[in-house]
């Protein structure tokens, strides 16, 4: 009784959960990104595999750290594919594999579930190269979380 009084007088009951507003916004943004693109997980997986196949014809991609994410802004959905390039095919002696390029594909109404990656892992790389590609992928994952 007295405790209850003190709490009410000092307003301790207010703001029990100061983060619920941010939580709900985050949850909504994530749900809506998926809601807005009406693709089944199977279709998404297939699309991702096809993109990989096309790009792989020309360059060697680091499949493990490849990321495809979705962002929505002003009701437009943007798909961002981040495909770290390990090497250009047929000219591997050149030092080009150090570049990591980010491919942006805009205005595609689709979502990719990256966590269910079924792509076989690529041949092993030197440690130096590995760390570079990982850096790029972590940047993208931060973006997609926003």
């Amino acid at each position, binding site marked *: 009784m007295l405790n209850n*009084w003190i709490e*009410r*007088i*000092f*307003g301790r009951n*207010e*703001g*029990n*959960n*100061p*983060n*619920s*507003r*941010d939580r*709900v*916004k985050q*949850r*909504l*943004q994530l*749900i*809506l990104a998926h*809601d*807005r693109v009406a693709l089944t997980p199977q279709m998404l997986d297939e699309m991702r595999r096809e993109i990989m196949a096309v790009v792989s014809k020309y360059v060697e991609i680091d499949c493990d750290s490849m990321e495809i994410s979705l962002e929505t802004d*002003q*009701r437009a959905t943007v798909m961002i594919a981040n495909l770290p390039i390990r090497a250009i095919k047929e000219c591997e002696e050149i030092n080009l594999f150090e570049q990591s390029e980010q491919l942006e594909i805009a205005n595609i109404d689709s979502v990719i579930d990256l966590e269910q990656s079924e792509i076989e892992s690529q041949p092993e790389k030197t440690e130096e190269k590995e760390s570079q590609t990982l850096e790029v992928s972590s940047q993208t994952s931060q973006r997609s979380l926003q």
Partner: protein
Amino acid sequence: MGRIIVITSGKGGVGKTTSSANLGMALARLGKKVVLVDADFGLRNLDLLLGLENRVVYTAADVISRECKIDQALVKDKRQPNLSLLAAPQTRNKILITANHMKQLVEFLAKSNDYVLVDCPAGIETGFQNAIAGAKEAVIVTTPEISAVRDADRVIGLLEANRIKDIKLIVNRLRPAMVKNNDMMSVEDVLEILSVKLVGVIPEDEQVIVSTNKGEPLVLAENPSQAAIAYDHTARRLNGEEVEFLDLDPVEQSFLSRMWRSLTSKK
């Protein structure tokens, strides 16, 4: 040709019918000729909120099946002669109503009215498809809650797919004190997520229940509550007037007033 506006939300219970009744009444009080169409076939409620339930003889289904003339089915509001209601049937199986029927009906009503407001049923099935047929504009009603906002987003997508581009938003049942405590999304949060034009912000108000009990829309009250004023402003904005949004910030409670309230309240 009057404006045909569908009032929709996706989720049920967020205040579509309350908003329809109040916007209709407020627009009529601005001197506009308004007809409210209850498109919630089988679960009609708009007549209750307007207090017109005893005067409904024919419904939209009777008009569509040509059992009566449209003028016979329109219930004129005695308090506000600019307002009339076309009620929904309470039984569903009379006639299969199609989107085309509804389109013809609202377009006919738009010829003799400034506003045709269509109160849409919850959901996105046939009833929704019928209700949006013929509408050129939409007012989305949502509350600052996750499920309502998600459903509103879905409905906005469907409206756009049905070539209804003029979409405005009412954020209903806002609790400013909770927003201040970061326990509820603000109007800005909802707008950021839905990216549509805001037309009204209605605070949570117990008077909504009282007015429903009496069958008198809030905007008719002699001493209008905050929600009543907010609905009136929303109607004016819908009608093209520039009206500032109400300042709904909660009054900061002082230490003394909190103490006084804790001493005087029973619990």
